[in-house]
C-alpha cells in the first residue's frame, strides 16, 4: 500500500514564526501536492511538484513556499505564519503515467495547524 506520511497531526505556532510541514511518500511517485482544506471551500491546491527541485504554483500560493530536494520528500514552508493560515494541510502524491488510471492521488493524514 502507498504510504504518505505527514510529520505532525497537530501543530500550534505563533504569528510571525517560520513553519515547516514535512511530507514523505514511499512509492517513488513523481508528483507531490500540498493542499489546504477549509470548511465549505474543499481542497485548494497550494503548490505541486512533478520532479525533484521542480515546483509549480497552485491556486493559492501566496504566503507559502515549497522545497523538493529528494523525490520522496516535499516540504511546505510558511515563511511568516499568519492567523489566516490556520487550516488543515494535506499532502498527496501520484504517479506520472501514460495511463490515466495511474494518476490517483494518495493523501496523508493531514496536519491541523493553528496560528495564534
Amino acid at each position, binding site marked *: 500500500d502507498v504510504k504518505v506520511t505527514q510529520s505532525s497531526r497537530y501543530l500550534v505556532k505563533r504569528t510571525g514564526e517560520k513553519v515547516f510541514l514535512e511530507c514523505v511518500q514511499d512509492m517513488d511517485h513523481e508528483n507531490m501536492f500540498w*493542499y489546504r482544506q477549509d470548511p465549505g471551500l*474543499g*481542497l485548494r*491546491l497550494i503548490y505541486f511538484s512533478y520532479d525533484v527541485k521542480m515546483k509549480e504554483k*497552485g*491556486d493559492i500560493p501566496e504566503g507559502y513556499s515549497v522545497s523538493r530536494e529528494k523525490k520522496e520528500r516535499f516540504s511546505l514552508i510558511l515563511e511568516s505564519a499568519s492567523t489566516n493560515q490556520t487550516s488543515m494541510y494535506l499532502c498527496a502524491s501520484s504517479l506520472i503515467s501514460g495511463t*490515466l*488510471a495511474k494518476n490517483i*492521488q*494518495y493523501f496523508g493524514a493531514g496536519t491541523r495547524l493553528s496560528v495564534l
Partner: protein
Amino acid sequence: GQQVMQIPQYQHVQEGEDFTTYCNSSTTLSNIQWYKQRPGGHPVFLIQLVKSGEVKKQKRLTFQFGEAKKNSSLHITATQTTDVGTYFCAGGGNYGQNFVFGPGTRLSVLP
C-alpha cells in the same frame, strides 16, 4: 481558470434513503475522480471516469460522467451509516497534472 462546483453542500438522509451529489465543471474535463473523506480522516480515492457517458458501479454506488464531459454524479442507493462523510469530485487534468477539487458534499445518515 477551471472551476469545479458541487451540489448540494450538505445532505441529511434517513438510513435506507438514496443520495445523489452532482459535480459540474466550467470546462471540458479529460477525466474525473471521486474521493471520500470520513469524519476526521483524509480523502480516499473511490473511482475515476474517463469516457464520455461512462457509468461505473461499486456495490451501492453508481458514478456517471456526462456526455459533454463537463459534469458527473455519484448516486448511493439505500444509504447506510458507513456512508457518512464528505464526497469530493476532482476534475482533471492530463497525465500527471493536478486536478481541481470541488468543495465537496457532506453526507449525514440518520439511523
